[in-house]
């Protein structure tokens, strides 16, 4: 347990130091939100309607962008081998690494969402709806993505392959995330129904994905 806590702290520290690039995800998120109105025009009514979807796609892509760092740098400098040899089971190591990764990449997105939502003309309930749905849904993206990151860890240019492998599996998260976010701003579906399914997806992927990712990491050597 202490080893896992130490690992968690190590991940947080590494991501804040030079070469960690923890803040890059938020900047990418901001850029995606910024360029969308250029592509579809600055019509505020339209932006308010599709705002939750834009924020969700931006969150999905910026989560994906950060995922290749999840195991890659540890694989390169050999610390992944040390983690594998340690007493802690690989599944728990993956779980802790994912949680730490979410804390430095997913959580800032959630915090930034209300601000970026304002730029997309979202108001009150919609704003909090998107933020809540992202808070509940981005852990699922990280955990599903961890499988792809583990499968492609030993490949020199695995980034694009990882996106191809991971994105099909994020479809359910996206569906229920956007429907929860849209339900918050009014609609026929009550907010809680898709939101609870979203929570279930996150918890389910948190329970199952570490096994797949750990198996993938072991099969890599």
């Amino acid at each position, binding site marked *: 347990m202490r080893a896992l806590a130490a690992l968690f702290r190590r991940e947080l520290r590494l991501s804040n130091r030079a070469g960690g690039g923890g803040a890059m995800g938020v900047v990418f998120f901001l850029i995606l939100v910024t360029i969308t109105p250029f592509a579809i025009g600055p019509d505020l009514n339209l932006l308010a309607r599709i705002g939750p979807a834009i924020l969700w796609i931006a969150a999905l892509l910026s989560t994906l962008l950060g995922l290749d760092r999840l195991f890659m740098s540890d694989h390169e400098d050999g610390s992944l081998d040390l983690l594998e040899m340690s007493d802690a089971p690989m599944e728990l190591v993956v779980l802790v690494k994912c949680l730490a990764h979410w804390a430095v990449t997913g959580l800032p997105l959630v915090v930034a969402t209300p601000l970026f939502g304002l730029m997309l003309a979202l108001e009150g309930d919609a704003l909090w709806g998107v933020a809540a749905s992202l808070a509940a849904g981005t852990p699922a993206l990280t955990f599903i993505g961890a499988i792809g990151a583990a499968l492609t860890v030993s*490949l020199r240019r695995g980034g694009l392959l990882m996106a*191809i492998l991971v994105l*099909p*599996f994020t479809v359910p998260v996206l569906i229920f995330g956007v429907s929860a976010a849209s339900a918050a701003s009014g609609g026929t579906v009550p907010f809680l129904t898709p939101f609870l399914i979203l929570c279930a997806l996150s918890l389910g992927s948190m329970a199952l994905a570490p096994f*797949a990712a750990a198996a993938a990491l072991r099969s890599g050597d």
Partner: protein
Amino acid sequence: MLKYANPTYFLRLTAAVLPWLWGAAGLTLGLGLYMTFAVAPADYQQGETVRIMYIHVPAAWLSMFAYTVMTLSALGTLVWRHPLADASQQAAAPLGAGFTFICLVTGSLWGKPMWGTWWVWDARLTSVLVLFLIYLGLIALWNTIEEPLKAARAAAILTLVGVVNIPIIKFSVDWWNTLHQPASVLRMGGPAIHPTMLWPLLVMALGASLLFVCLHLMAIRNEILRRRLRRLSYLAAEAADHGLEPPVEAGA
């Protein structure tokens, strides 16, 4: 069982069986196509376009069957580490992608006259499209990882993760009430389709399955041979390497 799993025995057995299987597949498909175009009646509502069904439905079944074969092989890879299971996984992926593609294309061609659109974001269509994307991802994974053993294990893990999609495809028409019609052959209470249309469909499904089995077995054979060739070329390169090296003792 172990005896059949020996690659050499497998090669010999399939060499003997394959001509018969090809013959059976050809006959069944020929009979099925004859029934499709000459025997089966046109639908009172859909007219002649209903004949698309005899291609579309077997392709859809096989797109899921191929994934099931791949899943069982993936278990074989992860649990028993059997090379034949690796080859079977690798061989099934492009075949599954092909049948899924046929299913999507014929469905689209059928949708245009019936629903008035080439494509809708219906639950069944979307989940089959996701299946197609998973197949493409698996093929990309096979192509990217150079070493066959590593590639097999990576693909097996991804295949097992992707299994969640199969029940979603099967039950998507029951869970979400959308444009695609619900199951009418494999359902509780017997098929809801007239025998004059059911028989051609079943014959076509059998023919397509036989075709899949033939192609799958041939692809496994090719993969086994390709791996032997790879191994032999390594050995040859190694031998050549040693042959070219100046003997160390000679100078000493």
